[in-house]
């Protein structure tokens, strides 16, 4: 069995939509930090993480139901049941990594911890090349573009992180560094299941539906261990019910970003998609500086550092965006996909079509169950919003509106491009 190569024009379309998804992911993942900033100190980091994951869970069931209908999820599961196991495992890895970052920030501060766990994109490149034929047959220029771009982005991330307003509170530095690096390794390895799923043809909207069960299950288990069982967890959440909405909202925004990240991983691979979505650090900083006035009163040197770091990071992302896979490399991806199809007994035609962004057998339309899921999710958010306390922070609403408009523009633009090119496949 030898798969026919994807036509050059089609490949260019898929790569372009993958790159656009990576940038859209950066904007939405970065903005997800904003609602969490309105939460004042004094809440257990584990509780913050748990409530965000609850928001993520609600969004990850309701968005696929709204966009495509859950009947599509059933089709994917029947074709590739083994990927449910991979998705659950990836969700567990995400929850452990996220909890480690909380402890890393506690011990060494965000400025040191962020670049350490951002090394996940470098590990993603290694796994992509080693296990899934990414960058094979890509040629020297593209190798240089991706690896050089990711390295340059890492340097930019370090510079930006050094001006980050969250400073180290002074915990155990060895433990903090280990936690941050550990989170990087976990997240970098989490992309193995991502790539596995998308090479075999699973739709990102189906993958996240199961991913989030692993994520919530692991997070609830960790909360029970660290917050004193169900009673301790409930008590902790009840004390902070006024801010739960903002955390849920953060989780929801994060899901939109993650969804774009999944499409980026599908169409440009993890070696390119993950560094592109790591531009979230730039967006987080934009929200911090302009909406929350975090660097107000800082000297010129600080602003110089911010501008310099941002330009370096953008240049690195640009280099990766210009180094998309050509036909020779894409042939190697097809070989990796073929290997997966043979190992797991998936129909080669299904794998081939899905890798090219076509969904020929997907049922269309929503059922009463889909509308029920959307209705319950909306009710959950309205319920928490009704009990929410107004933030005590000073917020520059003009900038918040401006950034939101840009984000919505990216959502609309990228969403339409994905729909036209792949029917959100």
């Amino acid at each position, binding site marked *: 069995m030898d798969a026919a190569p994807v036509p050059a024009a089609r490949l260019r379309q898929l790569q372009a939509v993958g790159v656009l998804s990576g940038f859209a992911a950066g904007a939405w993942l970065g903005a997800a930090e904003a609602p969490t900033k309105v939460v004042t100190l004094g809440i257990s980091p584990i509780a913050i993480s748990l409530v965000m994951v609850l928001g993520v869970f609600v969004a990850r069931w309701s968005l696929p139901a709204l966009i495509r209908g859950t009947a599509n999820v059933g089709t994917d599961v029947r074709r590739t049941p083994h990927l449910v*196991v991979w998705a659950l495992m990836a969700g567990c890895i995400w929850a*452990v990594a996220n909890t480690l970052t909380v*402890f890393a920030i506690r011990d060494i501060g965000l400025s040191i911890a962020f670049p350490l766990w951002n090394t996940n994109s470098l590990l993603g490149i290694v796994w992509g090349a080693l296990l899934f034929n990414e960058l094979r047959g890509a040629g020297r220029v593209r190798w240089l573009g991706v690896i050089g771009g990711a390295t340059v982005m890492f340097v930019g991330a370090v510079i930006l992180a050094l001006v980050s307003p969250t400073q180290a509170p002074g915990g155990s530095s060895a433990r903090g560094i*280990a936690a941050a690096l*550990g989170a990087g390794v976990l997240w970098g*390895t989490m992309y193995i299941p991502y790539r596995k799923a998308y090479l075999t043809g699973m739709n990102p909207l189906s993958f996240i539906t199961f991913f989030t069960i692993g994520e919530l299950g692991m997070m609830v288990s*960790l909360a029970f261990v660290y917050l004193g069982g169900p009673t301790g967890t409930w008590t902790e959440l009840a004390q902070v019910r006024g801010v739960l909405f903002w955390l849920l909202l953060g989780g929801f925004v994060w899901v939109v970003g993650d969804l774009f990240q999944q499409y980026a991983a599908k169409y440009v691979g993890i070696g390119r998609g993950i560094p592109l979505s790591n531009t979230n650090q730039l967006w987080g900083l934009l929200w911090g500086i302009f909406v929350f006035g975090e660097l107000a009163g800082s000297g010129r040197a600080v602003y110089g550092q911010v501008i310099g770091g941002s330009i370096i990071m953008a240049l690195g992302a640009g280099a990766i965006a210009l180094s998309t896979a050509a036909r020779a490399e894409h042939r190697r991806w097809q070989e990796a996909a073929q290997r997966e199809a043979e190992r*797991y*007994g998936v129909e080669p035609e299904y794998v081939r079509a899905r890798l090219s962004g076509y969904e020929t057998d997907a049922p269309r339309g929503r059922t009463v169950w889909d509308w029920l899921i959307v209705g319950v999710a909306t009710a959950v958010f309205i319920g928490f919003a009704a009990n929410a306390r107004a933030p005590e922070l000073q917020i520059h609403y003009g900038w918040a509106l401006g950034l939101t408009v840009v984000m919505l523009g990216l959502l609309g633009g990228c969403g339409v491009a994905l729909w036209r090119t792949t029917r959100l496949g």
Partner: protein
Amino acid sequence: MTDLQDTPRRRLHWLRPIVGDIQFWIPIAVLVGGLLLLTWVA
């Protein structure tokens, strides 16, 4: 695909390639390592 009848073995036969896939054990090892690391840092 095997031609087993509709038995519990047939229904779960898709699990077998996962166990035999070395790529499955890499994330599992990392997950276990992450949990051990968490017990140390927490």
